[in-house]
């Protein structure tokens, strides 16, 4: 008998509860749907003054240790922000910055941490560039590379999905270096003209960039190598899985609100359409998807540091959470009827973000494949 023993822990501190309340209110106030729509066409996709408010609240230093100027909490606290962010379709470099912080904590040396973490805690922006044009979710096979030429290392290749790279001071880039994955801490300031080009992405609230590395030169102190690089890549993946799932849970709750409101107002054939079981029952399925997803999410946040359970919990949470969000978005369009087919209907904003969430850092099928290997 080899029954998989899964942890059932769901821990949630008073501090997390307080953060969740504050953040829920903050993003509801600051990111109403009118704000979200205004930002669709702006250059950077968010209001700088809002970012400064988030910084002032200490949210960017939440997971940064106190010795580097942060508040010494962790990713489990970041989840309580990411969920309301998703609910209000807010866009900001929050997620990218959290990935960078965790990468530095897991793989950066003392000098690298000391240089970047205090700045990130104060609101400097970072981005990670770990995906390439083939779209493979495996982070361990970068084809971009670095060739040593004396003191310098010359980079080549193209990275994709460098989210918020335009406004980032730091871009953490994965490359192949001397036959193994490595990370480069690349300063935006050294990028040649035209290295970053905006991608056209399905979620129009996002700002994502293609990064052309050809000819860019870095030096040894910019690199994270071997075991440290693997640890940093794992940290990036885990952070992404957790925060994307949080965002998906928030998004599911947000689009469920829209569906319920519409089903309670729209009248057809002389009655509110929410009375029809053909619409009511799938709406309950959305709710059930959300309840399970939130349970997976806060469980994953509870076992982050536990090597026995964390990977299973994170992959399960992402697999279930992003599909639940996509289902909710898909049904939301359908239930709005002809209006749902228009750009004006807000359901499309949620569906398009759901698709983004699904295809960032592995969809459900991908994670289930890895889970099978972990579980049996």
């Amino acid at each position, binding site marked *: 008998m080899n029954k998989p023993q899964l942890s059932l822990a769901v821990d949630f501190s008073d501090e997390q509860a307080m953060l969740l309340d504050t953040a829920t209110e903050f993003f509801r106030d600051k990111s109403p749907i009118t704000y979200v729509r205004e930002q669709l066409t702006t250059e950077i996709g968010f209001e700088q003054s809002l970012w400064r408010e988030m910084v002032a609240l200490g949210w960017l230093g939440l997971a940064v240790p106190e010795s580097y100027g942060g508040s010494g909490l962790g990713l489990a606290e970041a989840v309580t922000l990411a969920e309301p962010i998703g609910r209000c379709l807010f866009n900001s470099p929050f997620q990218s910055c959290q990935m960078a912080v965790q990468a530095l904590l897991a793989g950066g040396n003392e000098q690298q941490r000391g240089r970047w973490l205090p700045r990130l805690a104060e609101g400097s922006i970072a981005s990670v560039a770990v995906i390439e044009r083939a779209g493979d979710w495996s982070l361990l096979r970068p084809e971009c590379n670095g060739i040593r030429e004396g003191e310098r290392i010359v980079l080549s290749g193209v990275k994709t999905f460098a989210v918020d790279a335009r406004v980032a001071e730091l871009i953490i880039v994965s490359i192949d270096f001397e036959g193994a994955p490595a990370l480069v801490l690349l300063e935006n300031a050294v990028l040649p003209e035209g290295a970053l080009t905006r991608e056209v992405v399905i979620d129009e609230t996002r700002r994502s960039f293609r990064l052309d590395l050809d000819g860019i030169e870095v030096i040894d102190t910019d690199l994270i190598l071997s075991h440290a690089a693997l640890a940093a890549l794992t940290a990036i993946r885990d952070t992404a899985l957790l925060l994307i799932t949080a965002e998906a849970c928030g998004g599911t709750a947000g689009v469920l609100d829209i569906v319920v409101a519409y089903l309670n107002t729209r009248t057809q054939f002389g009655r509110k359409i929410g009375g029809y*079981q053909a619409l009511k029952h799938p709406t309950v399925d959305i709710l059930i998807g959300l*309840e399970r997803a939130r349970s997976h999410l806060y469980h994953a946040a509870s076992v982050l540091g536990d090597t026995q359970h964390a990977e299973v919990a994170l992959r399960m949470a992402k697999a279930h959470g992003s599909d639940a969000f996509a289902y909710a978005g898909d049904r939301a369009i359908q239930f709005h009827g002809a209006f749902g087919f228009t750009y004006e209907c807000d359901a499309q904003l949620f569906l398009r973000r759901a698709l983004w969430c699904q295809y960032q850092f592995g969809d459900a099928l991908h994670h289930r494949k890895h889970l099978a290997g972990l579980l049996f």
Partner: protein
Amino acid sequence: MNELDEFRAEVVAWLTENRPPEPDFLLPESFMEVGSDSQFHYLRDWQQQVYEAGYLGMAWPKEYGGGGREQVYQDIVTAEMARLNVPFMTNTIGLNWAGPLILAIGTEDEKQRYIQKILSAEEIWCQGFSEPDNGSDLGNAQTKAVRDGDEYVINGSKIWTSLGSYAKHMILLARTDFAAENKYAGLSYFLAPMDVPGVRVQPIQKLTGEYGFTQTFFEDARIPASCLMGTEGQGWQIAMSTLTFERGAAGGQAGGLSMVVVGVADVVELARHAMRDGQPAIEDPHIRDELVKFLIEEQGDRLCESRSRVTALCSERPGSIALSGKLRGTELRRRLCQFAISLQGANGALWVGDRDAVAGGKWQRSYLNAFSATIGGGTSQVQANIVGERVLGLPKG
């Protein structure tokens, strides 16, 4: 080793030593499925043995036959029974619903009269709530109870009575006042004897071919007026508190395993032994993916239980997890059984009694029996309406 660990070791030793030998028939998986005398006697003897060893009703008061100990001891026994997969306690309605109800609101006489024999399985209990014309609409019960001197005269019929053929008592919901201001106010609650003239029990054959339920007919059946629980008109309220015991929400149950616990892990085991193209099914990527999907869903439900204990994570829709629990759990079980059959290849078409049936055909039987939970106690469709209306605030249809 602390005291609880020692106790656990003692329990494990006793259960291992005393578990009854495998019978030569397929055992039922819950009290609702007890369909033959041999199954019933086997299970009743086992419950009696467990009680006599002191492992049942451990936290119930000593003066009524319980153990007078802390709940934690009973919880250990129940958990070990599940882990060691020993047969379940068949007097479920008595142990988990009627018993705790009597202990909570019953009179001293009722406690003295009923509790110990519930534990020993000497007296089996059944439930008379549903009626042929009032399945999900319990409040509309039409079975009549008319006071006549120091008796009530009962007329009407109850249906889907599990253990009806073996029960000595029934918790009975009947209408004492047809002129009450609303349908709920006319109901009363009885601890009714089954062995009186005018009570007739007719077994119902299930889709499995077995007999697991009965229909109970009352034709001028006279029961003592002292069988009334509380006062006339309190029936609905008492029935609702019975349901909180039934759902396990109130605690206070006698404990002991009440059904065979089946999970995805059991189906994973099945997949290790089933064959596909000369390989164990567990190596087939499609089957692996299906198993992981089931695991994610099952784990999601278990984690919902964990999360429901964290108020701050349930504040927006506090009733959501509890109200959707039956819908989630029973539908998952039904689909899991379907999948377990599909793993058996050609043998999926065998049935209980065939010598080559996988695990005696228990998955096939489980699948057909799974409908008792997706239909009984409010069908999944009614459950979805309840969740949609009460949790999401959607309009009634």
